[in-house]
Each structure stands twice: as C-alpha cells, then as structure tokens.
C-alpha cells in the first residue's frame, strides 16, 4: 500500500507498495515516485504536499489498471489540476507563484504578467550611422589646404611677404 511519509512518521521515507494487497500496480511505484520527484521540485508547504499526494493516490485508485499510458497521463493531469487550484485555476501561474514566492507581492494575481512587467518596455530610438567621406584624395586636399593656411599665416609674419599682401 501507499504509505505517506507524513502519515507514518519520519522513518518511512519511501513509498511502500504491495501489489498483492493493493489495487495499484507495481508500475505505479515508479509513477508515484516520479510524481513525488515533481512535487519535491516545488516549494509547497507540508499541508499542500500532503493534500496533493492524497489526491493523486485517490485518482490512481479510480483509473483502469491495464493501461499504463492512461494512468501516467491522468496522474500527471490530476496533479496539475490540483496545483492549479492553488492559484486561481492556472497551473503555470501557480508554479510561477510558488517559485517567486519570496519576492512576489501578495496582491499579484498573475505572476507571469508581474515578471514580464519587471522587464522594461522598449521606447524606440533611431540609431543609424552618419555618412562618412573616406576618400584619400579629398583627405589629402583638406590637408594641403590646411597646410597652405598654416604657411600663409607664417608668411604674414615675415615683413616682405606680409607687406606684399
């Protein structure tokens, strides 16, 4: 039978299944331990975890024994369904709320929207390169012009050239 660790005390840390006495199949050992692994990855409190496990066990007892695919899919669907009830019927939002619980403001209804809201919305600006004249001849002309200017200024300081102008 399926013995929950909270029901049997801290010593019983693993599920105990006895197919001979319990309607659950041996394959359910793996299924339940997988579901347990799933639950262990989310920070439920003890009461939530216990309730989810009980719901899962109950569901498994109601499922046909001969189709492991159905049992597996329905078990997980049940688990998701019950997790969803923890947060306004949305399983994904429930997982997110549990994950962000330490920082999520209490009044937030949609954690996903809140998380996206923490990302800044773009305010578009244009950034485009300006045209650039890279011609070597134009550059040399500019340098020559500037050199001419320097020379002219220098020549003006010389009395003869300065007076000639």
């Amino acid at each position, binding site marked *: 039978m399926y013995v929950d660790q909270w029901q049997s005390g801290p010593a019983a840390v693993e599920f105990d299944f006895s197919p001979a006495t319990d309607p659950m199949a041996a394959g359910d050992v793996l299924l339940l331990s997988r579901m347990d692994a799933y639950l262990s990855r989310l920070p439920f409190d003890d009461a939530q975890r216990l309730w989810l496990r009980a719901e899962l066990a109950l569901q498994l007892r109601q499922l046909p024994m001969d189709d492991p695919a159905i049992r597996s899919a329905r078990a997980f669907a049940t688990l998701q369904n019950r997790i969803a009830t923890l947060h306004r019927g949305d399983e994904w939002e429930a997982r997110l709320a549990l994950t962000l619980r330490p920082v999520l403001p209490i009044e937030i209804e949609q*954690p996903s929207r809140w998380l996206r809201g923490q990302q800044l919305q773009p305010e578009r600006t244009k*950034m485009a390169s300006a045209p650039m004249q890279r011609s070597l001849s134009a550059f040399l002309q500019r340098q020559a012009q500037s050199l001419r200017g320097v020379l002219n200024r220098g020549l003006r300081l010389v009395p003869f050239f300065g007076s000639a102008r």
Partner: protein
Amino acid sequence: MKHHPGRGWEALSQGRRRWLTALIAIPAAALGVLLQHELALSQPIWLEIFTLGIFVLLFAWISAGFWTALVGFFVLLRGRARPVSFDPEILSQHPRADARVAVIMPIYNEEVARTIAGLQACYRSLQRTGKLEHFEFFLLSDSRDPQSWVTEELAWASLCEELNAFGRIHYRRRPINNHAKSGNVADFCRRWGKRYEYMVVLDADSVMAGDTLYRMLEVMEGNPQVGILQTQPVSVNRSTLYARIQQFSQRLYGPLFSAGLRFWQLGDGHFIGHNAMIRVAPFTEHCALPILPGPAPLGGQFLSHDFVEAALMARAGWEVWFLPELGGSWEESPPTLIDDLKRDRRWAQGNMQHLRLLAADGLRSAHRFLFINGAMSFLAAPLWGIFLVLGAISGLLFWKHGGSTSSMSLFHYGVDNPLPVWLFAVTLTFLLGPKLLAVIWVHWSRQAKYFGGTAALLFGVFFESVIAIVLAPVRMVFHSLFVLQTLAGRGVKWGAQVRGDQETPWAVAVRNFGILSLVGLLFLFGAQPLLGFWHFAWLLPIFLGLALSVPLAVFTSRSSWGLWARRRRLFLIPEEIQVPRELRELSPEYVDFLPQVDGDAFVATVVDPRFNAVHAALQRDRAGLWGVTAALCNKALTLGPAELSRRERNILLSDRQAMLTLHRAVWSQHEPEKLAAWGLL
C-alpha cells in the same frame, strides 16, 4: 558638429602633441642618419633603403611608448596636486536626483556564475555607497547556445530574487545577434537609450566599485561637454603563471603609460569598449558604426568598435577623457598564451580595418594617431620579421664578399666602430627604460610592499622581462601571420572568450607551436656555422624563444606554477595584498544561490517545474511558429531531446506554449526509455 565653449585643453594638447611628434621624429631620424652612414659603406642601395625605412618606423614606434612612459613618470612624480582648470574631475558636481545610469553587460556564451558574480559585486558595492537609486543594470545576452541562454535566464531570476532587485536588474536576449557586441550595445540604445542619460559598459569579466561608478556620474554631471569617460581597468584574479605575469606587468608599468597617455590626449582620449561611462544621447546620435565597403575582413562590419566609437564621438564635438587615476575598475586577462593570441587575432583584424578610416573627414588627429598606433601594434611584427630577414641577407652578402668573423658588415662589434653598439644601447634603453622608470616610481612612492617587497619586485621585473623577450619572437610570428591572413582575406568572427584558468595541454601546445619550436631548434643547432658566432649570438634570444615556445606555452599556462610564484611573493600586485571587497565577492560562495543546472539546461528547462515556469513567463506566444513547434515537440517526445539540433532547441525555447506543452507531455510519459531520455528515470 558640436562645439562647446571653454575647450581650453585643446591648445595645450596641440602643443603637447607637437612635442611628442618632435620627440618621436627627431631621434628616429637622427638614428636613421647614423645607420645610413654605416649601411652606405657596405650595402647595396635597395637593401639600405629597406633596412633604413623599417628601422626608422620601428624605432619611431617604440619611442612613442618610451616618451609616453617618461612623461607619465614625471606626471606621477608631480602628482595630481595641481589640477588644471579644465580637468573634468574638478568640474564634477552632485548628480541631479533624476540622473539615470544604465550599467550594461553585453554577454555572449559566457561562464554564467562568473558573470553574475561580477554584476552582483558591482550592485552590492553601489548599494553600500547608498547611491543605487541612480543606477539600473542590464544583462544583454547575445548567447546562441541554448545551454547558455537558459542558464543565464535562470541565474538572472535567482540574482534578482537574492538581491530583491526585480525591476532594477534586467535581462534581455537578442534572438538575432547581428554586429556582435557593438550591435548588442546599439540594440540597447535603440530600445531603452531614451530612458537613461548615461550608460556604463562592462565586459563579462569586468567589475567596478560603486564609488567609482558614482564618481564618474558626478564628473559627467559637471561636464556636459564630455561624451565618454574611460577608466583604466586593472587585470586581476588570475592564477596561471602567464596571466599573473601579465597582471604584474600591467599593474607595474601601466600607471606610467596611462598618465602619459592622459597627458597627450586630454579631451581626445581613447575608449576601450568597457569599464567606461558614456553619454547615451550623443552616442546614439553619432556613434552608430558605418559598414566599410568591400568584403570582410577589411570591409564589412568593424571587428573592433571601441576606437571608432571614440573617434565618432570626438568628431561630433564631444570630449573623450581617460581617467586612469580613478581606480576601482578591474578586468581579467587571458589565462594562457594561446588565449592571448586568439584575442590578438581579433584585434589585429579590427585594428587593420581602422586604417581604412584614416582619411575619413572630420576625425580628430589624435584619433587618427590612435588608429595608426593600434595598427602598428600588429604591423610592427612583420616589419621586425622583415628587418631580421634583411639582416640575414646582409650577413650572407657579407660572407659572399669574403668577410671574416673579425669584421662584420652590419654588425661591427668592437672599438673600431662603436656605432652598432650605440644603436643597440639606445634601442634597449627605449625598450627597457619604462620598466626601470616604473620601478623607480613604485619605490619612490613607497608602494614596493604592495608588489611583495623590493626584492620580489626586482625579481619580478627581471623574470617578466626574460619571459617577454623569449615570447617576443613567438608573438612576432603569430602577429605577422594575423596581418598576412587579414590581408589575404581570411577573417575571424567574435567568439566566446575563455575566462577561466584553463591549462594548455601538451598536445594543444604542440599543435599550435610545434612548427615554431622545430624551426627554432633547427636554427639553434644549425645556424651558427652559417651566420658566424657574433651574428648567431645576436639572434640567439629569437632562436631560443622559438625553440621553447611549446614548453613555454604549457608551463606558463599552469595555475600550480602561478600559485607557486604567488607563495614566493613573485608577480604580486596590490590587489592581492589588499583585496578590494568587490573582488572578494567574485568567489563562488557569493553566488551559491544560483540554481544548479546539472547536465543539459534545455532538458532542465523542460522538466523542472520552476525553471519551466520562469522561462515560459519570459517568452511570448509565437503563434506563427506553432506548426513548426508542434512538429519539434513531437520529435522531442518521440526521439528524445538529444536528437534536437541547437537551432531546433532555440525555436522551442523561444515559444511559451511549446515549453509549457513539452513540460506537461514529458511528465505524462510512461515508457521507461523515453523517461530516461529526459532524466526522469
């Protein structure tokens, strides 16, 4: 073009640069004339012209470094007690309450824990200053690897949770990472640039102190004409012998060169792409990078964007200041010789591209000089190589014309003709002088204890110089190859950089340097009869460097050797004696809150209910792709995640519904082999 009143530094800087030009040109020309007298007697005219031309170019280049260090030495001796009226530091003012700064960290497939640790260290440091309200942080991911993408995303969420910083630290991943890092920064400017007056660009291995960031904000606020403020990041945190030597030399000699650079540049400073504060509006308006005409590697996108951005900022009339004395700015250097050369390969291509902007209109002469100087860092290698070949030709001609070992054509060593010895001595002074000046400065300013004490400092300088001399020919060969590859049209792309201390295995060293070692050994054992004793002795350091390249690459990459040196106080730097808090916070225990993503991060994001929930929340519904994602979900479920390509994983990861669907479907499976493929058995 924007012109601000009160650019009093311009006339001063022009005068200083004329002095620098004279100091570079006159000794180079004088030594050229002296060498010409020597060569004219013994060399054919073509050999004489080539040898002279290359000698003058190379000497001019090393003398630029020497004069910069010498000026820096005197600037440091004089101290900053007498600031000039236009120094931006003295015009700083208390920031307005609404002054906003975005601290952006562009990343590309980086080691996430280290990246987050750096960002967190900056954040906490700012928090301690009590000035956090001016700053927001952006982790700008260009990662293409789905493993990196989801790890970054989960780490960001954990960091925000740890610091309670949702809304203050943002994460954005670009689906298309065109134009690499510069495109990443430009994308930030386009999306959010309007919201911030300033941005601080950090590399993935950068750390900056809160005090420094706030001080930069004050300087920016008091100087509305300044477009970029560049700090001098200090290399820290490495443990391989190679990186520790680099850290030591940069920390010891760097302040002289930095002070000298600041003296020449003033408001026409440089920008190295990170650890700098930028005024966003002019950057957005003027610093979008042009695409060079023609095919890569010399055409197309710029591989090195920083120098160009500084030049464009200055072209638009904004000032670019280098503030080396600010402190509180750190980075990490490449851990091994191979990683250093890989970085040089990219820089070589980038710097060669810059030469195509030399004739661009409106650029300031200081930035044209920076372009030339940057390119010369790599062009010097082939020039030196050609110089050595010309020397060998000269030697061969000498032997052909019946020379003897007692009198040598190009290399007359002895009292008869002391000129070559003088040329050698002057060159050596220009090369090693800055090292000596740095030691004098450190001793004079009583900082020797921060380098392990005077004895350790002197030993460190000696060993660093020996290693630098021995590695010089290896760099020469590789830099020459890089230049030739670039000119031949073989380009490289930006890739993820190695940030951790990874040792170089022998096989990798042999693959990269085996031929060099072989050539070095051949010369070492076979060249002496051909060259004669003196010529051989002259070239011995080069042959030795080549021959030892394989063991040098291996041994200098070892952390154990670096830590051994550290225990003996060799190559210590002040940051290792008094470790700043920001650097202490880079250790792994400060990021132990990060989620442990073991194995395949894509699988973890599908399987783990928390990771899946967070990741899905950050994606959107890509309804247009649902046909594709449905097929990919089916493939993932039937064949397993290992069969998905990187592109297919990226498509699935980018669609919220696909990720939620996969999560449900994977957990609903029952077949053991399929469950095992997702790590659920």
